[in-house]
């Protein structure tokens, strides 16, 4: 069980989620209620956090570390649908959907600490504080938009364009720090391809002088060239 001190952590994590910060002044008692019922768990790398098809554990918040949400094919191939890091919300769909089952399997990519608020508490709170509805609606709508962009990538862009798009999206001032778990296999599963194809594509971008790759980071050398590759044009 979490101690009172731990739950100060939970309050901090929740208040740091951009939209949830709005709740603190508006629905203070409800916010306390959410925080008070939250429990946390630690996960090792590769450990399963939630399993697709299982009853919904509750709304998750990542405090530390990165996790991935994946769909598996019957043959075991995986498609990463979502990567979540500190401050991000997990499971919004299973908490709110009628089926109340985990939609995807969530796996820790590195040591991770995840807070979980029971499903019933979240549903009860929605009725107590209508403001929360707008927040959750916005979260869901943003998630849907992100998912639609993945559909678009998979269907309308070749692997090279998907990779260029991802690099542009994730980079910070022309440098993309590679997380330890961001292997080519993981990147391939995110982009809906296989490691071989990803490796070749990465090498092509290097040869064309668009990026430079070393062990820990990827440098974007030609932002404009990458934008062309990403087929972002109107």
């Amino acid at each position: 069980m979490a101690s009172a001190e731990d739950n100060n952590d939970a309050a901090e994590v929740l208040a740091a989620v951009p939209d949830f910060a709005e709740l603190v002044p508006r629905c203070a008692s409800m916010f306390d209620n959410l925080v008070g019922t939250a429990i946390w768990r630690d996960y090792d790398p590769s450990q399963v956090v939630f399993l697709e098809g299982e009853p919904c554990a509750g709304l998750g918040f990542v405090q530390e570390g990165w996790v991935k949400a994946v769909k598996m094919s019957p043959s075991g191939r995986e498609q990463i649908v979502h990567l979540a890091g500190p401050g991000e919300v997990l499971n919004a769909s299973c908490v709110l959907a009628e089926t109340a089952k985990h939609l995807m399997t969530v796996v820790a990519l590195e040591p991770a600490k995840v807070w979980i608020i029971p499903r019933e508490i979240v549903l009860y709170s929605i009725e107590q504080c209508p403001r929360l509805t707008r927040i959750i609606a916005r979260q869901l709508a943003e998630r849907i938009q992100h998912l639609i962009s993945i559909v678009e990538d998979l269907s309308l862009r070749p692997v090279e364009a998907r990779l260029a798009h991802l690099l542009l999206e994730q980079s910070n001032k022309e440098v993309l720090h590679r997380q330890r778990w961001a292997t080519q296999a993981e990147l391939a599963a995110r982009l809906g391809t296989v490691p071989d194809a990803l490796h070749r594509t990465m090498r092509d971008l290097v040869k064309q002088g668009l990026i430079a790759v070393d062990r820990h980071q990827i440098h974007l050398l030609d932002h404009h060239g990458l934008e062309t590759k990403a087929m972002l044009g109107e």
Partner: protein
Amino acid sequence: MPGDTPDPFVDLQKIPWLKVLDQAGWDELLAATQLRSYNPDEVIFLEGDLPETFYVIHRGWVKAVKLSSEGREQILDFMGPGRPINIAPVFAEQPLPVTLVALEASALWAIQQSTLLKLLDRYPAMARQVIRALAGRLLYTVSLIEDLSLRSVTARLAKLLLMRLEESGQPVIARHRWATQAEIAARLGTVPDVIHRALRSLADEELIQVSRHQIVILDRAGLESKAQL
């Protein structure tokens, strides 16, 4: 249609999250509702537009699409009578993520976003139902990703046929005039040739029977195993 004045209430009362409204709520909603007509291929709204309007289809079919820079299209959904459109962007106040195009002569009920947001604040019970509808859309979008990335075209086609079977409850699926192989290909993320071959292979295996105006499902269990469900 001369002399035929459709009543918006007939279509709107079927939307689960509007059922919580009382008389005053309905009066306000219906006052902000108008019927708009579209021709085949007419664009109803564009990706990136502001979410000023929520729609419910009264008559006809429409498609939600994403266009690539060189004009290829991915259809996210075909939608027919009774279907609500734009729930997520309207309540989240986000730009529209897709373009909507009429597939045939269609009429849609258009409701102002501002009216819905006001009602949401006044009727908290609406909230839970709205969120449930949103979660349903999210599930659907994840299933699209799963299909594109992890299922073969034949499996995607089998799944689409089973979905239609589920909707209509009948093993005979009527083909709309607009449901060409090109449209089905754009929905399943492939090209018409591949759809043609996939249809033929399902027919050769006697899982379906294809004719000009309809597809008959002969072996549901066989299709389910093809669909890798």
